[in-house]
C-alpha cells in the first residue's frame, strides 16, 4: 500500500474542512445576503476541489454556473424578500431534534459503510476499469475529439445532453411563466432594489473593456471544446454572463436594448432545436437518432470527422440555449418579473 504523493491530501482535507464550515455558516447566518455570498464561496471551494481532482470541465462549469450565475440570481432574488430571517419558532424544536437524530444515525451508517467502498483514487476500482477505458481508448478513433469529456458528453451520451439542454430550456420557460404572469396583484411587494442614477464611471469603464474579451473568450471556449476544457455549457454561460455584467454595470434596460426578451426566448428554443434538429436529420438520413456519422456523405468527410463536426454543431446548440437561458433567468429573477430594473 504505497501512497502516491501527487494527490496533496493535506490540501484536500483543508479545502473540505473549509467547505463544511462554509456550508454550516451559510445555513446558520441570519442575513440572507451574507448567506448567499457564503454559498458562492462554497461553490468556489468545490471548484478548487474538482480542479484538483482533474475534473477541469466540471470545475469550469461549476465556477461559471454555481459560483457566478447562482450567486447573482440569489442576490437578485434577495431584493424582493425579507433579508433578515427570524429565529425558528419553538414548535419546530421537537421535529428539529428528531430529524437531527435520524440524520445522524443515517450518516453514521453510511460513513461506516464507506469501509467497503473501493479506495478513493484506486485505479483498479470497477468505475475506472469497466467503461471508462473504452471511452479513453476508442473515443479518439471514433470521434476525432481529444477532449474525452466532450466526446462522451456530446456523442456517446449525446441523448442525455440534449435533454440537459431541454432541462434548462424548461427552467427558463417555467420561470418566465411564473414571474412574467401579466395578471397578478402586487400584494406586499418589497422593493429593496437600488436606484440607478449616478452609476460610477469606473464600473462602466471596466465593463466596456472586459465584456468584449469575455465574449471572445466565450466563443473560444465553445469552439475549442474539442481540444481543451470547455464546450457548450461553459462557453454559453460565459457569454450569458457578459450580458449580465452589462446589466449590472449599466442597468437592465441597457442590456435589454441589446438583447431583447423575445429574442432571448427565441434563442432558448433555437439552441435546443438545432441540437434536436441535427439528431432528427441523422434519423432522416437513415441512421439512428443523433448518429452524426450520417452526416458524413453530406459533408463529404469520413465518419469520425462527421462525428467531430456533429459534436461541434450540438455544442453550439447547447451554447446558444445555455447563454439565452442564463440571461433569461437573470432578467426575470433580478427584476422580479416586471423587467423594469435589475440588480
Amino acid at each position, binding site marked *: 500500500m504505497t501512497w502516491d504523493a501527487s494527490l496533496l491530501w493535506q490540501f484536500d482535507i483543508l479545502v473540505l474542512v473549509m467547505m463544511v464550515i462554509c456550508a454550516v455558516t451559510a445555513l446558520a447566518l441570519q442575513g440572507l445576503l451574507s448567506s448567499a455570498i457564503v454559498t458562492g464561496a462554497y461553490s468556489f471551494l468545490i471548484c478548487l476541489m474538482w480542479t484538483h481532482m482533474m475534473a477541469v470541465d466540471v470545475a469550469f462549469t461549476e465556477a461559471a454556473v454555481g459560483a457566478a450565475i447562482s450567486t447573482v440570481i440569489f442576490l437578485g432574488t434577495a431584493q424582493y424578500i425579507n433579508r433578515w430571517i427570524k429565529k425558528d419558532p419553538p414548535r419546530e424544536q421537537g421535529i428539529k431534534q428528531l430529524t437531527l437524530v435520524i440524520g445522524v444515525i443515517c450518516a453514521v451508517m453510511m460513513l461506516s459503510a*464507506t469501509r467497503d467502498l*473501493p479506495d478513493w483514487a484506486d485505479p483498479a476500482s*470497477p*468505475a475506472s476499469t469497466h467503461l*471508462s477505458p473504452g471511452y479513453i481508448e476508442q473515443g479518439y478513433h471514433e470521434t476525432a475529439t481529444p477532449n474525452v469529456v466532450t466526446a462522451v458528453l456530446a456523442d*456517446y451520451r449525446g441523448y*442525455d445532453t440534449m435533454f440537459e439542454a431541454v*432541462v434548462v430550456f*424548461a427552467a427558463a420557460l417555467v420561470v418566465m411563466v411564473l414571474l412574467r404572469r401579466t395578471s397578478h396583484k402586487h400584494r406586499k411587494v418589497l422593493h429593496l432594489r437600488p436606484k440607478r442614477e449616478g452609476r460610477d464611471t469606473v464600473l462602466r469603464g471596466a465593463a466596456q473593456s472586459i465584456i468584449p474579451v469575455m465574449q471572445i473568450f466565450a466563443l473560444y471556449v465553445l469552439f475549442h471544446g474539442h481540444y481543451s476544457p470547455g464546450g457548450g455549457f461553459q462557453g454559453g454561460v460565459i457569454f450569458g454572463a457578459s450580458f449580465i455584467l452589462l446589466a449590472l454595470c449599466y442597468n437592465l434596460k441597457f442590456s435589454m436594448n441589446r438583447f431583447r426578451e423575445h429574442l432571448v426566448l427565441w434563442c432558448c428554443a433555437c439552441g435546443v432545436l438545432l441540437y434536436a434538429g441535427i439528431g432528427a436529420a441523422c434519423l432522416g438520413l437513415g441512421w*439512428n437518432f443523433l448518429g452524426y456519422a450520417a452526416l458524413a456523405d453530406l459533408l463529404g468527410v469520413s465518419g469520425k470527422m462527421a462525428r467531430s463536426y456533429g459534436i461541434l454543431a450540438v455544442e453550439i446548440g447547447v451554447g446558444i440555449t445555455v447563454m439565452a437561458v442564463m440571461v433569461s433567468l437573470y432578467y426575470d429573477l433580478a427584476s422580479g418579473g416586471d423587467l423594469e430594473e435589475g440588480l
Partner: protein
Amino acid sequence: MMDHAPVLMIVLPVFASLALTLIGPLGHRAAYGLLILSIAGSLAAAMATLVQVVQAGRAVQYRMGDWMPPMGIELVIDHLSAGVLVMISGCALLTAIYSMHTARQDNPDRLNHYYALFALLVAGLMGMTATGDVFNLYVLLEISALSSYGLLARGKGKAYYATFRYLMMGTIGASFYLLGVGYLYIMTGSLNMADLSEILKQPELGESVNVRIGFTLIILGVWIKMALFPLHAWMPNAYSRAGTTTACLIAPLMTKVSVYVMLRIMFTVFSADYVFQQIAWSRLVIYVASAAAVLGMITALSQRDLRKMLTYIIVAEIGYLTGGAWLANTAGYTGAVYHILADGLMTLCLFMAVGAIIYRTGVSTSAAMEGIFQRMPVTAGVFLIAGASVVGIPPFCGFFSKWYLLQGAVQAGEWVFVASLVIAGLVAATLFFRLLEKAFFGRLDDAVLETGSKTSHTAARTIRWNEAPLTMLLPLVLTGAALLGLGIYTNEVVRYLIRWSVPAGM
C-alpha cells in the same frame, strides 16, 4: 420510420414544445392543434412499438447515435414499458383534447408556454418509461419534475407554496435516486440497466452493503416521488390547488410512472430474489402499503374538497400498487402492473369528471355534486362508472386488478393486505355512495322535507340540462368506455403483455 418509433414518441413532444415557444402568438387554436397533433403522433408511435413488441415477443431496443450499449444510451421497450407508454400517451392525448376550455380558463395569458410545458412533461414521462439507462432516467425525471412545477404553479394563489414544498420533496427524491445511482456506479462501473443487472449477479456484490445502500436510496427516492403513505404529505395540496387541465394530466401519470420506475429498479436492474431474499423487507413494505391503502381512503372520506378527495384516493391506490409489487408472487405482480394501467385510466376519468363539474358549477367542494344526475347526466354516468371501478365492481377494470391483488395476497398469506384491500374497498364504496347520493337526490332542503311525503309523487324537479362542452365530454366518455373495455379484455392484456414481463424467480 417504423423502427424509429421508440425515439419518435419521445422527441415529437419536444419538438412540439419548441415550436410552441417559437410560433409565439399564433393564437390558442394553433397551439391547441399543434399540441394534439404531436401527442397523437407520439401515441401512434407508442402503438406501433407495442405491436412490434407483441409480435416479436421480445423487447425492442433502440441505440442512440448508433453506439453499442453500455457505451451509449439505449432505449429498451419491453412488454411492460410498451403498455405503460401507450397508457401515458393515451391519457395525455385525452387530456389535451379535454383542455380546450379549461386550459384557457386557467391561463388567460401565455397559453402556448403552458402547452409547451405540457408537451415537455409528456416527453419526460415517455422518456423515463422508455429509457434503458439509469442516469438518463434521472435527467428525464428532472424534466418531467420541472415542467410539472411550472404547470402546478399556474394554479390559484395558494398553489405557490404547495408547489414549493413539492419542489423540495421532489428534489430530495430525485437526489436520493441520483445518489443511489452513484453508489451502483461506484460498485459496478456501469449505468446501463441490462449491464448493471449482469454485473449485480456477482455474489459478492449481492452481499455488499453499499449496493444495498444504493438500492435503498433509489427506492426511497422513488417512494418520495410516488407519494407512498408516510411520504405523501406534499401531494394533496399540490394537486388539489392546480388548474383542472394540470390536475388531469399530472395526477394520473406522475405517480404511475414512478411506480413503473420502482418495478424497473426492483426487477430489471436488481432481481426478484435479490429484492425478496437478500433485502428482506417485503413484510414491512406490505404493512406500510396496507396502512397507505386504508388511511388514504379514510382521509379521502373526510375531505370536503373534491380534488383533494381524489388525491387521497391516489394515495390509497399507491398503497395497492406497492403492496402488489412486493407480494413476491406472479398474481401480485400481475395485479400491480394491471393496476398501473387501470388506475391511470380511473384517476384520469375521475379528475376529468370532477373537472367538468367544477367547470360548470364553479364549486369545488362536494356540494358541487348536488343534482348532477339531472343537470349533467352524461358526466354523472361516467363518474358513476369510474366510482364503481375504484370500488371494484365488475365488469370494470378496477375489479380485476383488485381480483389479482387479492389473489396474490391470499397466495402469499398476507392477510393484513387482504383485510386492508377489502376495508379500503368498503370505504371507497361509502365515499362514492355519499357523492352519488348527493348527485341523485340533489339538495333536500327543509322546504321539501316537511312536505316530503306529499311532494314525493310530484317531486319531478325541473333542473335545467347543463352538460359540459363537447370537447370535455368526448374524452370523458372515451375514458369511461376504456374502463369497461380494459375490464372486459383483462385476459388478453394479461396474456399478451403482463405475463411476458413477470420477472424470473417468482
